[in-house]
């Protein structure tokens, strides 16, 4: 099943929720705070330092559901519905989940001689993927976003059409990801393999680990992402990009200040591996010609408006843009995320796959 489709379904599900009364949450950009929003470093650059998280955009679909058309923001009623999901997700985390016991339900049914409850469709329509993620896993948005989608341009909030080459690459990737019995670690995403989530994947909000930290010094801005511990060292002294023979997952970033906005242009990507999407895996693999232009603007003491323009003519038939705020939250800090070092899942999944191979061979021999 298409992941994007899945997200819309999730949003549709949220929109149809009942009408438990909800209190109105603070706006992400209080106007009164704007006056105090221009802190400067001792050397005179705009100061955007701190630990930030994209948690508040949690639950905002990446692409806009079609029924919203070109409407970029929610109505008051829709906002209240989202507030409810925000409160519910917080409650889910704070209570450890509302009495869900899917494994026990299966066992109980077995004991009673009843048929096991059918697992609802998961990522690929089967398996434990369909089980609710335990409440203790999650982090959550603190206030509801007004946005109908993370993509704000084109005006319909939807990805431009893929080029035929990109569509073919996406199809090939999906085929590998969905092989019934994975042959190798390369069947999994670069994120599953603990290599990276890429530039976009490191900031697009997911279930947990949406934190990043900005550190500045004269001539540089550094951005450190918690999950898979990527760091970007961004010179702001006007130097050009590295030679195109030097390519990397996180690309080569150079920056400059436009008023109080940090503008970061990143090129020199390794092509045909990562996607500009959730966890660096959602969507078509980008080409080595990808250019990302990001803007970081501090609009209040605790809010930076983030936007990213995606330009990759070999993959997308037009440029597109995502935009959302990142916020500072009291007590929120980054911790070491030694992903590869603790990636027992990779071993376990491959071990399971080889056992499946044996079973399949035995079945075929019968």
């Amino acid at each position: 099943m298409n992941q994007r489709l899945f997200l819309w379904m999730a949003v549709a599900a949220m929109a149809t929720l009942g009408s438990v009364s909800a209190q109105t949450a603070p706006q992400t950009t209080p106007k009164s705070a704007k006056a105090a929003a221009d802190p400067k470093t001792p050397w005179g650059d705009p100061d955007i330092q701190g630990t930030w998280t994209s948690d508040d955009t949690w639950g905002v679909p990446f692409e806009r559901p079609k029924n919203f058309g070109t409407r970029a923001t929610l109505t008051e009623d829709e906002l209240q519905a989202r507030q409810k999901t925000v409160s519910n997700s917080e409650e889910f985390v704070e209570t450890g989940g509302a009495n869900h016991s899917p494994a026990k339900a299966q066992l109980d049914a077995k004991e009673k001689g009843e048929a096991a409850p059918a697992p609802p469709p998961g990522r690929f329509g089967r398996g434990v993927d369909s089980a609710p993620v335990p409440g203790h896993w999650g982090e959550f948005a603190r206030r509801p976003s007004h946005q109908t989608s993370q993509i704000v341009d084109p005006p319909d909030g939807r990805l431009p059409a893929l080029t035929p080459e990109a569509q073919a690459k996406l199809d090939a990737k999906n085929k590998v990801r969905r092989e019934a019995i994975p042959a190798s670690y390369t069947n999994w995403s670069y994120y599953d393999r603990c290599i990276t989530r890429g530039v976009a994947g490191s900031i697009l909000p997911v279930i947990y680990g949406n934190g990043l930290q900005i550190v500045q010094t004269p001539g540089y801005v550094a951005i450190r992402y918690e999950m898979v511990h990527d760091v970007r060292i961004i010179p702001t002294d006007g130097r050009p990009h590295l030679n195109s023979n030097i390519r990397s997952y996180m690309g080569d970033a150079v920056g400059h200040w436009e008023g109080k906005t940090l503008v970061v242009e990143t090129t020199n990507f390794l092509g045909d591996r990562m996607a500009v999407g959730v966890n660096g895996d959602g969507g078509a693999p980008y080409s080595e010609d990808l250019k990302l232009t990001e803007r970081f603007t501090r609009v209040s003491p605790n809010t930076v408006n983030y936007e990213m323009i995606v330009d990759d003519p070999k993959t997308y038939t037009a440029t597109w843009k995502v935009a959302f705020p990142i916020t500072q939250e009291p007590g929120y800090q980054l911790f070491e995320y030694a992903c590869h070092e603790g990636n027992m899942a990779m071993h376990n999944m491959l071990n399971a796959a080889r056992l499946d191979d044996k079973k399949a061979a035995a079945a075929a021999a019968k």
Partner: protein
Amino acid sequence: MKNKLWIAAAGIGLLLGVAPVWAHHAFAAEFDVNKPLVLHGTVTKMEWINPHAWIHLDVKNADGTTTSWMIEAGAPNGLLRRGFNKASLPPGTEIVVEGWQAKDESTRANGSNITYPDGRKLFIGSQGTGAPGDKGDKGDK
């Protein structure tokens, strides 16, 4: 109670919808949905490793023998941010794990629902980070 139902549905609906792009890896590749289990055991070790914490559990079998299980839990960093730390689940703690056994048939399982024997959930709520304004702030500035 209708409201409660709604909340449960919301939580689960939410998670169902977004889980595919949330979770670090595909569960179905690692755990077997046809092997649900409930384990009552004693914690021997909690490994605070990313991307998933692992709880080591000694489970007494009916025949008096003991089997060591490893239970996959969530990403530790979210728990650390909520104020849990390496002392939060000491060895000797009795817990109940509902989940699914590993597909490779080892004594590993995914911990879908982890509780104390009296039903209280492990890892719930915020322990407080000590930050000003945080609900766990003890007032020591």
